[in-house]
Structure formats: structure tokens, C-alpha cells
């Protein structure tokens, strides 16, 4: 076989592989839209479920997921970004910081159902928060932390070290270099990391399974000690636990969840590209 032919064959083969990467996402989105679009109407988005969830809307699940995601953000963002600033700007290379980094890496590798069990043990039972929004958000926050910390630390470290040296040489403190230069410059990267982390929190089922999710609760939660329905768990329930569930309701629910998650993803990409164009280094 001559070289030209090999070259062409290589291109074709690699091109096909690239297509294979794209195909599943097109297929997933396409089938969910095709099967679920007809379930989407005003009632579906704004009403309580009726008739054993076979009719009516999924409002409590939508609101529940929004609450859980916001609550997770409230807990995970300050701790995650603060920890990243400490690791990137202040921590010296000691056994302690090495242990922290090791913990973060390992935390990222823990299966989500284990977080769920951990949340059940610590928040629901030991701290007696009960099966509640509080317990669910704390569990999701712990799962989200490693994603936020590592993305934020990476974004902070990408800011040239010279900027910090200049601020120090101008009689600035280390905190001033973080506050006025490093943090604003790293912000797009940090925001992207936060959104990616929260995205995962919004879509997970296992961590909320034992800590907050309600099987069927046709009302909105009253306090952080209340249970709530949530989209991923609701989807699991209506897909496996309720016989005779209409197909379009399952796919409609999936479509809502997918839209929520993908639009968060889109926002993250927009922020990233907007700031990348404006960056001065």
C-alpha cells in the first residue's frame, strides 16, 4: 500500500471515530425530543402530578431540583473557592497540603451512591436533619466540592505568577494580589468549574436517594427540613416503579431535565468564550 493511500485511509478511519463520538449525543437528544416534546405544555411545567403521577405536571420535581441545586451552590461555592484560593495562593508545600490535594483527588473518584449512604449516615441519622433538603444539599455539596476546588485552583494557577510579584513589589499584600488581580482574572475559569460541578449535582440520583428525595409529594416544600421531589429521582420512579406509565411523560420529564442541564452548560461555555476574548495575557 502506498503512502498516499495509507494517509487517506487514516483520515477516513479517524473521521469515522470522531463521528461515533457525536452520534450518541445526537441520538439521545433526538429521541428524547421526539418522544417527549408532545408531553411539554403549560400544565406539565406548572401543575402538581395527578392520578398516581400518570397525569398532571411535574412542578414539584422542577422546583425541587432548582432548590437542591441552589442550596448546593450556597454551600459548595464559598468552601470550594476559598479552599482553592488557599491551596493556590497561600499553602506552602507541606505534608498537610499534600494530604489535602490527595483527599480532593480521591473525593472526585468516589461513586455517587457512596456519597448518598454517607449523607444518610451523617446528616440524616447522626445529625438528625432527617430526610430533608438540608441533608440533600450538604450531601450534594460534598460531592461537588472536588470538582469546584480543582477547577478553581487550576484557573488561579493559570494567572501569571509575575502579576503577583508586581503587586507585592508595589507594596501590596498577598491578599490584595488575590483580591485585585488573581481572582478577577481567574473568575471565568472558576465560574465554569462551579457550573460544571452544579450540573453534576442537578443530574445525580444516588446522593439524593436516601437524603432528600420524595417518591410522591404533590406540594412544594415548606422549609429546609422538608423533603422534596427532584427531577432525576422522579424520572427513575416513573420509569421503573410505576406500572403503566405513559411513555411521553417519561420522556417529557427527561427532556425538562436535559434542557435544564444543557442550558447551564451553554451558559458556562458562553462565559468562557466571552472572557477569553477579553483577556489581556
Amino acid at each position, binding site marked *: 500500500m502506498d503512502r498516499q493511500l495509507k494517509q487517506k485511509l487514516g483520515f477516513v478511519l479517524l473521521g469515522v471515530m470522531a463521528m461515533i463520538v457525536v452520534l450518541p449525543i445526537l441520538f439521545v437528544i433526538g429521541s428524547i425530543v421526539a418522544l417527549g416534546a408532545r408531553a411539554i405544555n403549560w400544565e406539565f411545567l406548572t401543575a402538581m402530578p395527578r392520578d398516581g403521577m400518570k397525569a398532571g405536571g411535574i412542578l414539584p420535581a422542577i422546583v425541587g431540583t432548582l432548590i437542591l441545586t441552589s442550596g448546593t451552590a450556597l454551600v459548595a461555592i464559598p468552601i470550594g473557592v476559598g479552599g482553592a484560593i488557599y491551596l493556590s495562593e497561600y499553602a*506552602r*508545600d507541606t505534608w498537610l497540603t499534600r494530604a489535602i490535594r490527595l483527599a480532593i483527588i480521591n473525593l472526585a473518584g468516589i461513586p455517587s451512591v457512596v456519597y448518598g449512604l454517607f449523607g444518610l449516615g451523617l446528616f440524616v441519622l447522626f445529625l438528625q436533619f432527617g430526610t430533608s433538603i438540608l441533608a440533600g444539599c450538604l450531601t450534594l455539596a460534598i460531592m461537588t466540592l472536588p470538582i469546584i476546588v480543582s477547577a478553581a485552583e487550576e484557573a488561579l494557577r493559570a494567572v501569571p505568577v*509575575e*502579576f503577583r*510579584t*508586581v*503587586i*507585592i*513589589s*508595589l*507594596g*501590596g*499584600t498577598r491578599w*490584595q494580589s488575590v483580591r*485585585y*488581580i488573581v481572582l*478577577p*482574572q481567574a473568575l471565568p475559569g472558576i465560574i465554569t468549574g462551579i457550573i460544571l460541578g452544579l450540573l453534576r449535582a442537578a443530574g445525580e440520583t444516588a446522593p439524593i436517594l436516601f437524603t432528600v428525595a420524595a417518591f410522591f409529594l404533590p406540594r412544594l416544600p415548606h422549609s429546609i427540613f422538608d423533603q422534596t421531589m427532584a427531577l432525576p429521582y422522579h424520572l427513575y420512579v416513573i420509569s421503573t416503579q410505576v406500572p403503566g406509565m405513559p411513555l411521553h411523560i417519561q420522556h417529557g420529564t427527561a427532556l425538562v431535565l436535559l434542557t435544564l442541564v444543557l442550558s447551564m452548560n451553554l451558559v458556562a461555555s458562553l462565559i468562557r468564550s466571552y472572557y477569553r476574548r477579553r483577556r*489581556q*495575557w
Partner: protein
Amino acid sequence: MVKMPGQNPPKIRIENVSYSYDGKPALRDVTLDIPANAITVLFGPAGGGKTTLLRLINRLNDLVEGTRMSGRVLLDGKDIYAPGTDVVALRRRIGMVFALPLPLPGTVRENVLYGPKLAGLRDQARLDEILFNSLQQAALWDEVKDRLDDPATTLSGGQQQRLCIARSLALEPEVLLLDEPTSGLDPISTGKVEESLFRLKHNYTIVIVPHSIQQAARVADMAAFLLMGELVECGPGSEIFVRPRDRRTEDYVTGRFG
């Protein structure tokens, strides 16, 4: 009558300073007086300890881990490494200009005013005055007076470096340290930077690591030759480049090595 630079009282006194990174010595028992209102040049081949010495004068090396230092560095007779020294205040008295122009993100105006703002100055009239004075002294005002709110990165390399000088001057320091400030610049920009140094020395104590032996000879009132962490010889520039006392200095100055 022209006052000889050597007769000025020493602004900075470096006293028996030894310094090492991770056990590797960078300076060996260096003692040097740096006179006020003059340009002192630290020159010599790479790895001689020039930059290290420069960065010790405003304690920028505090940021580096794994270093050891002995000896004293006196500013107006006071040891800047004495416990309880306010390092932030010290760095406001001793400005630093780096080898590469490093404008911070932001406009020309913001760059110049970073130091005073970090120090908490908010008075707009005073800030405007500092902006004008600093750019004027750095010989940059005429070129940027209509571009004060443009991003600093839109200036040319030479302008950026003078902007960095102006940024240091905005703190109204007593000492200005420059680490090869013209290494990235073309000859015309280099000339402009040197020109501003000549004007600045009437009001400031200037210590510079030059980027070439020619530049050292052009700007030096005082010169110190550093070789492998050792101070070989120091004295007025007019002597050290014409009649060096030490054989090694002579070899270096005449281009036999380096």
C-alpha cells in the same frame, strides 16, 4: 561644582551578606555601599548573583522557599531584615522594575495608580497629580496623555517598560531597583529609558542590573562587579571600566570572557 557620587552618604549598606537557594550559594559575604542620588550598577556574567542581590534590597526574595541568608541590609542605617520590619511599607519605599515589561490587566491610568490605590489613597485630585508626575518623570507623558484609558497592553514594548517605571514612581519611593529593564527593548527605546534614569537620579537612589557591559559603562556612577556570588570589585564607574584594579574585572570588561 559636580559632586562626586562616592561622596554621597550611603543610602543602602549591604553588610556581609551570604545567601543560598536550597543549599546552593548565590552570594558569598558581599559588602557594598550604595550611595544616594546616583546610579549604582551591579554587573557581571550570568549566575553571578546580581538579581538575587537586587531582590534582597526590597525583600522580594521572601516569596521564595528554601533560602538561607546571613548578614544585614541597611536602609538609612536600619536593618530591613530586623524582626518587626513592616515589609509592605518597605516595598513602598523601594520600587522595582522587572526585566520584561509587565503591565497589569487594565488601562494605562490604572497601571500607574495601582501602588497608591493599594496603599489606600482615594483622593482623586492627588491621584491625578501622581499620574501626571509619574508619567512625566518616566518620560512617557507626552506619548500617552491621550491614551490614558486605553488598555496598557496596547502600548509598544518600550512604552510599556516606561509605564512600569512610572508605576514604581507613583509610590514616590526613595530607591528604584531595575533588573535588566531594557533587555527586551530596541536601541531607541533603550535610549529613552536610560535618559529617564539620568533625570531620575537627582531625586532617587537607583540600583540597576544592566543588560550589557556597554549599558553598564554608559549609566554607572558607581559600579560593582559580581562573579559567582562574590563581589570582586566596586568603585566609581569612571574608574572601574577604565582602570579596573582586579584582573578578573579587567578580563570581563575588555570582553575576554562573559
